């Protein structure tokens, strides 16, 4: 297609219309009300969706006006969303980053525009003004320590990674490896990615059962979705009783499975705590009050013994 004046004009017109409509959407703000932008990593994943819900709930509680967008796991999209926040002149941006490197430009843009940024739940290469989250390395440490304790420091372990290159994957892996280094009797048999996806973890575990049947005693999955996949594969092969499975996040299904005695354990990441922490920090920053540069919400290991407390949350 050649670019004729008619097409060019038409395109311009279309763009203009879209822009005008988009601008109209931003309702006028009441005086004294803070405007905060929140970009969620992926509202279709259970944990980040819960985190998003917690942010929304806390914003409502504290009377903050929230612009809520979903990056659908696309860092590129997240950068554009940050740019939109800047042009909407929000007071603070809360970012739930998609990726360590690729989401960094979003932080740089915001800082260049002198808008304070809070990272929630995971880190980026570029440093934000404030980080509210849980130390993912700690999650890896907690999970692998649980495995070491269960196996008495002796045995073979398999690890299922999240999407390679994401902050949670990198740090949970690092934490787990720190523990492994402490126990010479604990051997990492293999580690592969299943991209946070249940079906992929299921297939991966099926293949592992073929390759290493009887040779592994524990599986650490970087999230519960994948732990559930691994659990299904082991149950179907009749091997669950021989293998200890632990995930991270404490999603509802995983808690149910722990309660039912199917899943051994999960590491609770406090979505509500993170969400509240992020919004509270945003208000402090917006009103120019002193704030903590790092707010750490601790992880907790959930087992059958303490699961009831978490099921209520």
């Amino acid at each position, binding site marked *: 297609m050649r670019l004729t004046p008619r097409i060019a004009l038409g395109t311009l017109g279309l763009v203009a219309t879209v822009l005008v409509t988009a601008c109209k959407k931003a309702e006028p703000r009441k005086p004294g009300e803070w405007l905060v932008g929140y970009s969620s990593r*992926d*509202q*279709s*994943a*259970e944990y980040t*969706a819960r985190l998003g819900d917690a942010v929304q709930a806390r914003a409502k509680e504290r009377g903050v006006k929230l612009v809520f967008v979903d990056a659908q796991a696309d860092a590129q999209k997240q950068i554009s969303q940050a740019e939109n926040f800047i042009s909407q002149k929000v007071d603070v941006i809360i970012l739930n980053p998609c990726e360590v490197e690729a989401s960094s430009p979003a932080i740089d843009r915001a800082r260049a525009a002198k808008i304070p940024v809070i990272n929630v739940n995971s880190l980026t290469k570029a440093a934000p003004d404030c980080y509210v989250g849980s130390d993912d390395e700690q999650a890896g440490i907690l999970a692998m320590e649980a495995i070491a304790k269960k196996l008495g420091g002796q045995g073979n372990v398999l690890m299922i*990674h999240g999407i*390679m290159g994401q902050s949670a994957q990198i740090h949970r892996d690092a934490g787990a490896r720190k523990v492994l280094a402490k126990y010479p009797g604990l051997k990492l048999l*293999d580690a*592969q*990615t299943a991209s946070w*996806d*249940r*079906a992929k973890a*299921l*297939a*991966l575990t*099926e*293949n*592992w*059962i*073929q*390759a290493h*049947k009887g040779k592994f005693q524990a599986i650490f999955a970087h999230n519960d*979705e994948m732990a*559930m*996949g691994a659990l*299904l594969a082991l149950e*179907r092969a009749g091997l669950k009783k021989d293998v200890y499975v632990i995930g991270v996040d404490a999603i*509802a*299904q995983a808690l*149910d499975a722990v309660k039912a005695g199917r899943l051994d354990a999960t590491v609770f990441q406090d979505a509500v705590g993170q969400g509240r922490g992020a919004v509270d920090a945003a208000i402090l920053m917006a009103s120019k009050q002193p704030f903590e540069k790092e707010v750490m919400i601790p992880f907790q290991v959930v087992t059958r013994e303490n699961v009831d407390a978490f099921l209520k949350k």
Partner: protein
Amino acid sequence: MTLARRFILDRNLVHRFGIVAVLLLISGLLAATTDSFATASNLTNVARQVSINGILAVGVTFVLLTGGVDLSLGSVVALSGVVCALFAHPGEHALLVPIGMGLLTGGLCGLLNGVLVTRGGIAPFIVTLGMMTVARGLALILSGGKPVADMTPALTDLAGDVGPLPIPLLCFALVALVSWVFLGRFRLGRHLYAVGGNEPAARAAGVSVPKVKLFAYGLCGLLTGLAGVVLAARITTGQPNAGQAYELDAIAAVVIGGTSLSGGVGGVLGTILGVLLIGIINNGLDLLSVSSYYQAVIKGVIIVGAVWLDRRQARS
């Protein structure tokens, strides 16, 4: 003509020796380098894992044969799985209801694709790209963004085995067999090739082009629905974010199998070979404990290499 003779005369199969060679080569290598590949339980395992991609690939073969494309497979898998799971809570409905609803959802998405392509005259790429996002969105809306759990064991048992054979494999085999017979022996099947081979000429020869296309997209959707139900049974939940990029694996399998992206050439036998090749690569790389980074590279190289070998051999 006997079935055996038709099989031998199938031009596609004769042209597919390149793929068969690659398939045998890789299988041979895996059998030699691992203890576990060439065991009955691992082969069953591969069969179970390829079934979902297999069902999708057979479905999209119909669409590709008409010269179209369907990019909405992965999203429709998720949507059908979610719908199926919503109707599958224990004690609520008979087993056929969730299965039927899953199939219906997929079929309707496919038909809508078909209507927009034929009546709307919009390019299949655009129509199905739209469906890809719409179906994903609907899956998220219906599930509230969270996996739909608590499925009746009657349904999740469908991911299990009958004797030594996984039920998903039986579904795949049945779908492939029926499709193969259909494409080779039925008028509508023949018409599919005609439409893909030269659409204006097919119309001039009295073929109802809209009917043929509507059928192709509808059937592809129905099979996508089936894949969604099988996936939900396999992972025991309806996952709104399941099936990401499944369309790419399915289309890759079809193209590896010799079906032309411009339509009119190819068939189900080739698609089965393509599905097996992709399945065996995935399984073998896990068995060999190849790092995730290298897996992606190796898989891509093998796929392109296999197609290159095959086309080179078909030309000579």
